[in-house]
């Protein structure tokens, strides 16, 4: 599928979800500052095109595993916003009953098998999910998101190798946002492109502009087809950038304003918006409508989460064992 053949509704849907993620993260930022979010959050604003471009290729029963920076992935895969927000706020109505939090979002009903607090740890699990799919003879696929920093975890290498040898239906999507907390990739790898490192597993591995949602969408599409056709895994490195600090306590002073500015110019949201307007199939009014709707949905979700009861500590021990 090329850019030209993506249906209009699909493009609008992508915009809607990217916009949802952006607004979700912004809202979170506000309520974090007002003290409504315990712990910390790792925000993904700036990286929306990866989550959306990838997940728009997936069916509801396809599967993702995510990272610590996973709100976007989960939203793109369909997590109900109110349950996500409630979880991130530690409320009983959260998708994990409030015991997980931002780094432990699970929503199996939509194929979401977890954000995780241990860098790289979702990748071996994803390979296992893909093994399960193959074992059962199903045609589902798994996408495993990881950061470029996670590529330095041995677990990731073991897992990718296994997926390669077993030709499993899994796609590794690496969000290369240049930094692992404060450390730029050039201090932790001799090669500028992560995909170069992964070619060594004998699987297709490519690097693309992760802020171009259409590019992400079309490239992922091929990988998904490959996986569904039992041709094995693909690794897609998406170059992108996070606008905020690593987590809420990080002012990100290790980056220059210029660098940030240069990426703000490549902001995936206005890029898609302008593209839609230029094609003239969508007009400003339509986009405004989408934006307003998203705003309302997020407000409703927040109201829900705020009104939700606290966790009852006496009940959670039941979660440990089946």
């Amino acid at each position, binding site marked *: 599928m090329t850019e030209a053949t993506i249906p209009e509704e699909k493009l609008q849907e992508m915009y809607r979800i990217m916009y949802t993620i952006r607004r979700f993260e912004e809202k979170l930022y506000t309520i974090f500052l007002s003290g409504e979010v315990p712990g910390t959050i790792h925000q993904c604003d700036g990286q929306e095109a990866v989550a959306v471009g990838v997940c728009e290729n997936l069916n509801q029963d396809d599967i993702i595993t995510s990272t610590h920076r996973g709100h976007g992935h989960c939203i793109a895969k369909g997590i109900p916003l109110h349950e996500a927000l409630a979880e991130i706020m530690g409320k009983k109505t959260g998708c994990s009953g*409030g*015991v997980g939090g931002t780094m432990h979002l*699970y929503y199996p009903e939509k194929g979401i*098998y977890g954000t995780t607090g241990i860098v790289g740890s979702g990748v071996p699990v994803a390979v*296992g999910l893909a093994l*399960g*799919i193959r074992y*059962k003879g199903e045609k589902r696929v798994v996408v495993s998101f990881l950061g470029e920093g996670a590529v330095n975890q041995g677990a990731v290498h073991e897992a990718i190798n296994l997926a390669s040898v077993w030709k499993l239906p899994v796609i590794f999507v690496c969000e290369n946002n240049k930094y692992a907390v404060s450390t730029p990739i050039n201090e932790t790898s001799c090669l500028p492109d992560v995909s170069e490192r992964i070619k060594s597993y004998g699987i297709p591995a490519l690097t693309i502009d992760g802020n171009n949602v259409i590019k992400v969408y079309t490239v992922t599409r091929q990988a998904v087809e490959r996986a569904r056709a039992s041709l094995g895994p693909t690794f897609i490195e998406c170059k992108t950038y996070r606008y905020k600090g690593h987590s809420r306590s990080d002012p990100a002073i290790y980056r220059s304003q210029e660098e940030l500015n240069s990426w703000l110019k490549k902001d995936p949201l206005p890029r898609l918006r302008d593209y839609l307007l230029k094609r003239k199939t969508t007009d400003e009014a339509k986009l405004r409508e989408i934006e307003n709707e998203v705003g309302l949905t997020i407000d409703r979700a927040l109201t829900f989460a705020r009104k939700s009861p606290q966790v009852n500590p006496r009940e959670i021990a039941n*979660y440990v064992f089946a």
Partner: protein
Amino acid sequence: MKTLTIAKALGQALSEEMRENRNVFLLGENIGFFGGSFQVTKGLIDEFGVERVKETPVSETAIIGAAVGAALMGLRPVAEIMYMDFIVCCMDQIVNQAAKIRFLSGGKLNVPLVIRTALGANTHGAHHAQCLEAWFMHTPGLKIAFPCTPYEAKGLLKSAIRDDNPVVFLEHKLLYGKKETNLETGQTFQRIRSLFSVPEEEYIVPLGKADIKNEGKDVTIIATGLMVYRCLNVAEDLAREGIQAEVIDLRSLVPLDKRTIISSVRKTGRAVVVSEDQVTAGVTAEISAVIYEEAFDYLDAPVQRVGALDIPIPFSPLAEDYTIPNKTRIYAAVKKCLERN
């Protein structure tokens, strides 16, 4: 009824469960044609093929990760980590993923997964000898089984496979090939001898039930795995002196059968806890703490802990024997426990 080795009994459990339930499959290093380092999976690949007996690279983390993911998909993987020492390479997937996913998903997801692994000292040196079960007892979300006879090995492994939680399944290297015919004889081995026979009919041994391997009223000796044999040997000697030692085989460390332990200790008033792992912060620490907590007023003497010395397991056979609990040390501990009125 047929007498079997533990290795064979485990193989039977695997093949029966695999026949019974297509969702059960195996993965691990050299488990295919080679049959696994201890020959437990010998022949299974012939019956079940490469998709159900999956040979892996030397990648313990990927093995457990693959098993966790497959379990999340509703399968029932049985992963083999060749030696428990190598489990140290995949702690993260076990502790942070397998053990926690159910909890972290608010109880939505199950991880029905078995990790079989061989433990215990057999003169291979410090990287092939460790008993690390205390780490897993300390990790909420994991169950732990540790059989010492063929009957129980088979029955417990079946329970482990059918359990909806991750189970660490411990197999002692020196017990795999143990034969009924070369068992120590005598009264105290009666029950254990019977457990070398495995019936044709289907049965299971539930997780969480300890077994009294020898009844007695004077002192309670609590043990697991190879140590059960050593304790029975000591019980034999004690019997000759007119002392009746009750020997409890825990069989599961999680869930722990506190009932059986406590009611025995309340009866005897004395307890010796024997485990092959190092003493400090090991299995014996937890078991003895439990005894004090629930039978303090019944105790006539402090609980004696007998475990490996707090050193890595040495290679020299003499030194190894000195390091892990042997008959002499267990005997001495029991005598010390009996000393006090």
